[in-house]
């Protein structure tokens, strides 16, 4: 690998403390998430899987945020579009495929939950549900545990801008502000809550909501990987220094329909989508790496081949893996139900 530092110029990622290797790894995760997402869309259209909720257009911020956290100690409470995020904190394409096909081996839920409902205790990805923003108070509770146990980890939760209207968002922010807890809340503002555009969701700015809770709120271009990395890293430094929570509003655009059950052209135009597609952060970041001299079109082709192979293999594995035994739906209501402990 070419060392960018050899060019003699201090590069943005180096200034932020990101090695060339890490900077490239970020790109690999973005591309993997994008290609995975596109594959599932195909699988759904081909009738192989029932449902997909996409994160296309949001991967850059997701991956950059993950890389700015302590991926060995922090706790993660992602929302349902965060494929790029979970891939960056240790989930594999195979894990995700097992979830998409709802197979027994799915580490998220054993084939119980819809895809995109992440959970993996070993990776400290906290199990999530479908009613939106319930994870914000959970993240605050985990941050409270960090404070009580005097542990230097943070909790990190994501959600959409529509979700920032939920009571749980506000109650969670307020609690975290009062007790100065080490939690980072990142809104992935993708401009739409299913069909309802931003201006009908809130009259102000998501990031300004932090002001009312006594901690900083910052807006960042979600298509600028290094800028997202910088603000999340700073938020983490503040959190572990006991300075409390940060709200980050990453601006982006949901390039896909809300889900495979949604016809987005009923409420937005093709032209609008194309306008934002041109601002996609992944090609921009690729160009940055090329400009730094640490990436090339040849390497990119190799990467795409490798990612395709990884997805193909995971796809086949997920497809062929067994479903859970039907009777297994009776298990894990309580801790002791396998032993017949609960009547």
């Amino acid at each position, binding site marked *: 690998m070419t060392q960018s530092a050899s060019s003699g110029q201090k590069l943005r990622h180096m200034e932020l403390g990101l090695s060339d290797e890490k900077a490239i790894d970020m790109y690999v995760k973005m591309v993997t998430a994008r290609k995975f997402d596109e594959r599932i869309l195909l699988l759904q259209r081909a009738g192989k899987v029932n449902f997909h909720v996409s994160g296309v257009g949001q991967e850059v911020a997701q991956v950059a945020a993950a890389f700015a956290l302590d991926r060995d100690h922090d706790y993660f409470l992602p929302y349902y579009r965060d494929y790029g995020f979970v891939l960056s904190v240790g989930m594999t394409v195979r894990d995700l495929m097992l979830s998409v096909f709802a197979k027994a081996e799915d580490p998220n*839920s054993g084939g119980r*939950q819809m895809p995109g409902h992440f959970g993996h*205790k070993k990776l400290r990805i906290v199990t999530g549900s479908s009613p939106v923003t*319930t994870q914000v108070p959970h993240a605050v509770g985990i941050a409270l545990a960090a404070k009580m146990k005097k542990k230097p980890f943070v909790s990190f939760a994501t959600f959409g801008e529509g979700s920032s209207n939920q009571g749980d968002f506000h*109650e969670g922010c307020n609690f975290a502000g*009062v007790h100065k807890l080490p939690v980072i809340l990142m809104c992935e503002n993708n401009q739409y809550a299913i069909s309802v555009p931003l201006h009908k969701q809130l009259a102000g700015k998501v990031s300004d909501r932090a002001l009312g809770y006594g901690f900083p709120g910052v807006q960042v271009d979600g298509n600028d990987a290094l800028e997202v990395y910088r603000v999340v890293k700073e938020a983490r430094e503040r959190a572990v220094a006991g300075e409390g929570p940060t709200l980050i509003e990453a601006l982006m655009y949901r390039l896909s329909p809300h889900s495979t059950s949604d016809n987005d052209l009923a409420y937005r135009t093709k032209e609008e989508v194309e306008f934002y597609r041109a601002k996609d952060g992944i090609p921009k970041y690729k160009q940055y790496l090329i400009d730094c001299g640490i990436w090339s079109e040849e390497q990119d082709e190799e990467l795409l081949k490798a990612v395709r192979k990884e997805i193909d293999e995971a796809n086949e594995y997920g497809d062929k893996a067994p479903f859970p035994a039907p009777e297994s739906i009776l298990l894990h*209501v309580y801790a002791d139900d396998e032993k017949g402990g*609960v009547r």
Partner: protein
Amino acid sequence: MPAMDYIDAIRLAMKEEMERDEDVFVLGEDVGVKGGVFTTTKGLQEQFGELRAMDTPLAESAIAGVAIGAAMYGMKPIAEMQYSDFMFPATNQIISEAAKIRYRSNNDWNCPVVIRAPIGGGIFGGLYHSQCPESVFFGTPGLKIVAPYRAYDAKGLLKAAVRDPDPVIYFENKKCYKLINGDVPDTDYTVPIGEANVLREGDDITVIGYSLPLLFAEQAAEELACEGISTHILDLRTIQPLDKEAILEAVRKTGKVLIIHEDNKTGGVGAEVSAIIAEELLYELDAPIMRLCGPDVPAMPINPPGEKFFMLNKEKVKEAMRKLALY
């Protein structure tokens, strides 16, 4: 064995559990400096500090949700809802989150949270300081629900709830706080969740219930004994999961059963207890299953005659018991 008020038994259980395990902590509105609006948590902040007897902002969904998050990390939070009437904003956190965390993660995550909430009327609390919301949560798999009547069980069930690896709702009866007094060992004991308890042995009729109304049943049974009516009383103690065997055994004993609770009749715990009895031993019954519950109105009023009309009392329970005995 020291005799103790019900409220003191609850406080003692928290104190003992917090001394035993530093991961146990209490959070809620006014639970810290003030020691709770009923004094249930009095002295805990002095002994354990601000973090472990934590005054929270006034926001019930956050109290439950933050406790759930901490529990998923491995803490043992006891979240207090000041009145059960105010726990409805936290219902989504309790039903969509706490109850489903183990199940939805296929046994990867769990949520050992305790949610304490005072239930019941008879204190001139009006519509919103008197409710019994058991039936809202009853029938939600993944939750355990306890509702102690004796001081002994108040302590033992709370300690069991704290140690349980799954979410437990602990419905304490606010009228019982100072009214119910009984022997409470100062030793470290628990009362197993899921086990009912026979309060009184008898041969003629069976009364099944939980929480405050059992006091009326015990008083009535005493008086009816003079009339030659022998009453068997079963305290459910845990309302989810129900102790099916104990229910059936108690009914078999007499063949006549009265089910009592203060929560309104329709869709209440009594309906499920009745169904269990009807499914399992309908032909062993000597009388139709009888229920005496709160009326199907939204909640009890604050005016004294109206509140009295809503509440069960010794006379109402005694009348129902006599009627059943004479059937």
